[in-house]
């Protein structure tokens, strides 16, 4: 093994970090890519443009965790949103979240709107990728339409205001509900509407 060269490679990596005054942490932002922005914007908002907003959870972590009822994953130090603009006016925001399903990641896309006369609410939810056994039930309108109109104050819990996608898809259904709740609460707590 060329020990010298290997160590140089590792040290170079750490050096870049140190020069930037950065600190490596064990945290890894579970940032989920948004795979089909053009198609999703057209579906939810009839078209428009978007930009990326990456917001550190920071001091809002405790407040978010209290509202969603569980701790954020250790790797959720930042949340990603995409404000959508159409005709010079902000028409909504898209968020994506990666949850841990039974057999792989469950990637959820959430469209949020901010009506003038009320709190932010869900316009639509879709699954962009998953490895679950009951995929068609998880992606069905019957299951996903339950999230429409929900706000950060909604319970958003399977067994309470959300029914299972399939009797055997308990974990996957809960993952989707938690993803929606997490991003909606994060949207509110981090002031995404103003960003």
């Amino acid at each position: 093994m060329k020990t010298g060269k290997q160590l140089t490679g590792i040290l170079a990596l750490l050096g870049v970090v140190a020069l930037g005054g950065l600190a490596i942490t064990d945290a890894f932002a579970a940032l989920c890519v948004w795979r089909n922005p053009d198609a999703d914007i057209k579906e939810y908002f009839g078209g428009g443009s978007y930009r990326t907003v990456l917001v550190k959870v920071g001091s809002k972590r405790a407040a978010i965790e209290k509202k969603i009822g569980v701790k954020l994953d250790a790797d959720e130090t930042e949340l990603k949103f995409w404000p959508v603009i159409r005709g010079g006016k902000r028409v909504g925001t898209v968020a994506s979240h990666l949850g841990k399903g039974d057999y792989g990641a469950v990637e959820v896309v959430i469209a949020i709107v901010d009506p003038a006369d009320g709190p932010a609410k869900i316009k639509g939810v879709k699954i962009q990728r998953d490895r679950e056994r009951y995929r068609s039930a998880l992606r069905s309108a019957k299951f996903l339409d339950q999230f429409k109109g929900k706000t950060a104050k909604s319970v958003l819990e399977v067994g309470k205001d959300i029914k299972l996608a399939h009797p055997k898809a308990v974990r996957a259904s809960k993952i989707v509900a938690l993803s929606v709740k997490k991003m909606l609460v994060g949207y509110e707590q981090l002031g995404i509407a103003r960003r």
Partner: protein
Amino acid sequence: MRTPTSVALVVPVVLMLAGVPALGDLSITGLEVLPRLDIRARGGSGPPETLRLMQSEINLRFSINKDDEELVSFALSPNFETGMQGRARQMHFSNYYSVWNFGVDKPKLKAGQFVVPFGAMADYDTHPLILQPPYARTLGLRLDRGVAVEGFRGDLDWAFSLTSGDGRGRADSSYAANLRVARDFEVGDDAYRVGLSLLHGEQMPVFATQPAPLPMAKMGLLGRADKDRLALDLDWLRGIDNIRAELTFGWDDGDFVHGQWLSWNHPFSYETELTLQADRWQARDGVSFGLGASLHHRLDDLSGIRVAYEPRWARPDWGGSNSAGLVTVQWYRNFALEW
């Protein structure tokens, strides 16, 4: 890096920083800095036993916006050290590209150094994996420099790329032009993605038929050839199993070549998965084929280990045969930075 990679990446940033009045509303958002370490121990019959730092890289992603609209996004992956050598190294390192956004419903322009959108590798990112699809044999390259236009029409995704055809910049006028179309289907709980790729390239690299999965330093170019390729690729989610396949055939300077690749991935849980694959390639100078098995286990959200075994065989036309059995153990860890 040389033009057009440098131009594609540097010019817009310089213009913004220079404060050109017309571009004064530009901002940078979505900055992600994601270092990654990948260390592998390799042994078996054929190659010498090694313990190497395979990837010591930083993945940078950010966007430049004008007012509320994303104009361009960047993906840069500088790598500091790797045990890969020669053309294998060029096939893996590194992505350096920008994606220009002209509005929803309009095609996007990708410029820089990126994975050629041909066959299975258009959608299947194998950079961090041990087992690789057979791009080293079917095309002779994976990353290449140039431009691509990507869009969708109804349910059809399409991509057209025009690159150097050599996996790097080149001084002559040779090129590789590639068109791929792909479509998603759902049948019950199964999901399918089917792609069709057509490529024509001039003076593309050709490697000798040999058992190694990737051409390392000692395995130089056999030569160059004008290549025509047609590939059908399939990505099939059958319940929880992911089956991928690619059928490729074409001509190297008029000589018929063809091959097949099949991969099956089965997750036992979120943390543990098994991948099996088989491939065969009939080249002008012989036939090579191989099998692969890889077991992956996530240790936590940031790190994991993989163990893989790849027996491979090659039968050159000039006679004889040779084989290799590669055993690889990989440990990787991702990091994030806070400031």
